[in-house]
């Protein structure tokens, strides 16, 4: 009989379903094949013209039916696709999931294509006044719903039969990890036996790209797109804007075993710590990120020595990678340079609100497959960051535990610890 409670007497949380979509493809099989082959999904932008833009590449998901329909429809489709894959794998009913939904998704706004078409359907007044005039005579709700922050989750709840008021959340680039954390916590508190946690982001619009560009957050290495994302390299110059989704079916180990489900991994611990230093920059001593890593380890009941692999946030911005290295070396000390630490973002770019969930999915697969995906484009190591980044080629390795980091604007730091076996 397996132990059903963790070191703090809380129900152990198992993963019984995993789904993922990135620029590398739909589903775990395609993604894993590409990821372990060191293949990049970064490509030139074709969704909108790139005139005047300093960044002209991205990891957009261009092959879905909603890919050209705007941020809300695409985010919905990404979320649903990952959720369907995860629920199917879990063996639960994809129309009657029966647990709460936690959705990490980007903040929504009225798309420019809608602004333009509403505005140009009338000629009275100017600016906002005209938009409001046109708005109040609209006869259907489609456009309205793209502007409601709760609508994507509401539609998912209808489609998947989740229970209760779905929670839509944002902790910026840590959102996906927070969605998982909320699911873990709900199960630990005994509020439910199962939860569906999704991170989805289809918001790579021209305006989003320009906003990040104006903050100097994006790479401008446009010439060879697949080489642009180079976490931990000396010549890294920003992240690659990307889209994707990840979904996990979380269940109490007890409930999962009782129904004979396959246990894909264990969500052992979650940790977070907010940073009060600056809106986009981290405290120079990396103490909040360090505290988040330590909180996740403590929550998991594991010591530093018991982490086999780190799935890094590794955005390829000068700032993040330096800060992440500092926090890891603070926690792991001498081990830091010799433990494998790789960044999926070298191949898929930064999927923003989805990143924490996508990378949790890949972390779980890393353990199941005993293969660590590489950090590609590691041709010019940053001498100030001495890490074993699993450079350029996958590595076969027994991985029993993973730390997955997610850090975001607004001082958001969330870390997850996952394990292969319940222990």
């Amino acid at each position: 009989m397996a132990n059903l409670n963790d070191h703090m007497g809380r129900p152990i949380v198992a993963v019984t379903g995993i789904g993922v979509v990135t620029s590398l493809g739909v589903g775990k099989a395609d993604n894993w094949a590409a990821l372990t082959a060191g293949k990049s999904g970064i490509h030139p932008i074709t969704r909108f013209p790139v005139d005047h833009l300093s960044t002209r590449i991205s990891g957009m998901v261009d092959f879905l039916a909603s890919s050209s329909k705007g941020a809300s429809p695409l985010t919905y489709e990404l979320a649903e696709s990952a959720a369907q894959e995860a629920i199917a794998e879990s063996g639960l009913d994809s129309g009657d999931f029966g647990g709460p939904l936690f959705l990490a998704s980007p903040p929504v706004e009225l798309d420019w294509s809608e602004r333009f078409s509403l505005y140009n359907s009338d000629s009275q007044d100017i600016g906002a006044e005209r938009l409001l005039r046109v708005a109040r005579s609209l006869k259907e709700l489609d456009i309205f719903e793209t502007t409601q922050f709760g609508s994507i989750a509401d539609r998912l709840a209808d489609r998947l039969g989740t229970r209760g008021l779905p929670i839509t959340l944002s902790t910026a680039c840590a959102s996906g990890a927070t969605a998982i954390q909320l699911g873990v916590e709900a199960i630990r508190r005994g509020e439910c036996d199962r939860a569906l946690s999704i991170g989805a982001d289809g918001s790579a619009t021209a305006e989003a790209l320009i906003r990040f560009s104006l903050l100097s957050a994006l790479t401008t290495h446009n010439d060879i797109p697949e080489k642009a994302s180079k976490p931990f390299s000396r010549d890294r110059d920003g992240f690659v804007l990307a889209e994707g989704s990840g979904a996990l079916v979380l269940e109490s180990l007890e409930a999962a075993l009782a129904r004979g489900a396959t246990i894909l991994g264990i969500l052992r611990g979650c940790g977070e710590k907010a940073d009060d230093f600056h809106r986009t920059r981290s405290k120079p001593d990396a103490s909040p990120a360090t505290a988040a890593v330590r909180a996740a380890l403590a929550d998991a009941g594991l010591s530093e020595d018991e982490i086999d692999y780190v799935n890094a946030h590794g955005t390829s911005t000068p700032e993040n990678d330096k800060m992440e290295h500092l926090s890891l070396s603070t926690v792991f000390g001498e081990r830091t340079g010799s433990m494998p630490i790789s960044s999926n973002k070298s191949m898929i770019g930064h999927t923003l609100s989805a990143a924490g969930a996508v990378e949790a999915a890949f972390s779980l697969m890393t353990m199941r497959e005993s293969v660590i995906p590489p950090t590609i484009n590691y041709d010019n190591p940053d001498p100030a960051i001495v890490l074993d980044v699993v450079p350029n080629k996958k590595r076969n390795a027994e991985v029993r535990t993973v730390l997955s980091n997610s850090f975001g604007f607004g001082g958001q730091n969330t870390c997850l610890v996952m394990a292969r076996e319940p222990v």
Partner: protein
Amino acid sequence: MSPHHVVITGIGLVSSLGEGPDAHWRKLVQPGLEPVLEATRFRPYTVHPLPEIDWNLQIAKRGDQRQMETWQRLGTYAAGMALDDAGIKGNDELCTTMDMVVAAGGGERDETVDADILAASESRNDRDVLLNEKLTTELRPTLFLAQLSNLLAGNISIVHKVTGSSRTFMGEEGAGVAAVETAAARIRSGQSTHILVGGAFQTEHSDMLLGYELAGYLHRGPWKPVWQRQGAEGGGVVTGSGGAFLVLEQREHAISRGRKIYAELGPVLSGRARRRQGELDAGIAALLRQAALPSGELLAISGASGAHAATAAEKSALDANPAIAARGFSTLTGHMKEAQFPFAVALAALAVEHEAACPVFDAANERPFNGIPKTVLATAIGYHQFEGMALVNAA
């Protein structure tokens, strides 16, 4: 292990009525209080505008103020008030261990840039190129940060040093409901000892009105109390700028540091009625059943928005129980979206603490309440989706 009790030890409020819990309560107990209205700036819409605020009182650094637009300033300000009220502000140990759940929408866009692009779109067919051309040159780089949903929480961390954890829930009134529900669950289960929870809404911006009006939700024409807008021109919602933050605390934690307790937060309930399938009436009734209302006369602080269908459903559910005396506070403050439920819970706590109900806000639709409210119901039935309620009990 028995669950911990959740108490309210800090309240920060801003609305057109003023700022602070005391100022709000003094206004709300005045019989026949007239709402503060702004009927011309956004004609044909009426809004309840922000009062004059000295931001310096809660956001000491001008540099911090400049990094925010009004929505984030308002939330950061209301959060600071709640922290002050709970005796937490400036206490490093309490701030660094404090959790935070913020209910947020998005921040303000640059209306001038948007209007300029829209005007140019009338004579350009290459609108996507136009967009790139204008946005790359006219957008203020840091404006993005003032728009990001989670940067209200981010600013609260920076300005008030609340850094235990930081989560932002999105989704209109439902975000406020889930924020309070999750915060309470964390305390009950022993995950947290003290949490800052709340939200803010700044309606005096065309995009914030557009978010309702794309479905025709806004009331037009002469202002009316929230229960009297059925059949009037428009959709029934009159919005207001405001913010509400609460400090929720484990009872033992509050007692051990000798703090005043406003009230105890009882059960917090949430729901998602499938309204298109006509489930809203049953959904509200189910929440009222789950709340297990105490017997006898009950004061209800209703967050009803005025939206015709949702408000009619809530009114008929509340009217069906002759023991309930409802107060639709949107009559006086307007609808504050993500802040609506935290605001309702705050007013319920004030009624419990003052052992008095507010007089009716709308004599034609609300009945007097003469007793001492030991338990008060707070509601937020979303104008479009999601529903929530809570019971607030005497400390």
